[in-house]
């Protein structure tokens, strides 16, 4: 994590955090999907990104994969808190 980033409370409590700043489509979503594969269900992932397509891509990704988007804020950079869904077939 870069020193210039002010850690937010969400970031500090998240199980994993990912810096996707300066990454462009499709990299932020690819990185998130790779990180999610390593995580356990219910764990949270905090992501910071500045790709212009990030918000719409993230919403589409969450819709398609079933993971949960707990929080999203846009300024100064886009920040998202995600929670990994239980494996398919649960509940």
């Amino acid at each position, binding site marked *: 994590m870069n020193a210039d980033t002010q850690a937010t409370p969400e970031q500090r409590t998240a199980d994993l955090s990912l810096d996707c700043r300066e*990454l462009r489509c*499709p*990299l932020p979503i*690819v990185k*998130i*999907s790779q990180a999610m594969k390593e995580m356990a269900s219910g764990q949270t992932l905090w992501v910071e990104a500045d790709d212009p397509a990030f918000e719409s891509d993230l919403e589409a990704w969450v819709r398609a*994969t079933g993971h949960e988007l707990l929080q999203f804020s846009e300024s100064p950079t886009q920040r998202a808190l995600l929670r990994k869904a239980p494996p398919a077939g649960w509940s």
Partner: protein
Amino acid sequence: MSRHPEPTATVADPALIEYAERLVTAKVAERLDALNGPLSQAEPSPSTTAPQLANRATVVAFSGDMDKLMAAFIIATGAAALGMEVSMYFTFWGLAAIKKRTSFRRKKVTEKLMGLMLPSGPATVGTSKMNLLGMGPAFFRYVMKKKNVQTLPDLVALARQTGVRLVACQMSMDVMGITPDELIDGVEYGGVTTYLADAREARITLFI
């Protein structure tokens, strides 16, 4: 004599009419049974059943243009990130994306000529517009670097890293005189049936 004579008294006889009707009913029932038997036993043949759709995307990369290949790879890696099973089929000019070098050893004259005229890999492909004798791609690469956009070789590496299957069309390789040692590692080889068997069950298939 008229062609359609009026019914006579004998035809109107109720017993005869009833007899005729029974004959017709029996004949119709017999014919229907003969038709119904084979119909009810007939099973749809495997070739006409709709295949089960898999969570899969397939992309045919036909173009050898940098811009089009970038689109193909961005879609493929995006689909992989969505948890889809992704395969890309490289045919004709598209093979340039998965070449690592051009070799001339032990090749026929025509194949050597092909090798001279074709790009040696994803780093040297031209753009579909604004190519400007090769200056266009260099300009694009400069702009994309400035804007942190992945270049085509980066995207090829990303595709491999995200588990996208890369399949080279053997017929195109033969036509273009491209040998397996000129292609990047981990590439699979196949023909049109390999692609179709994959694509018929895929939710998404694209030809780029």
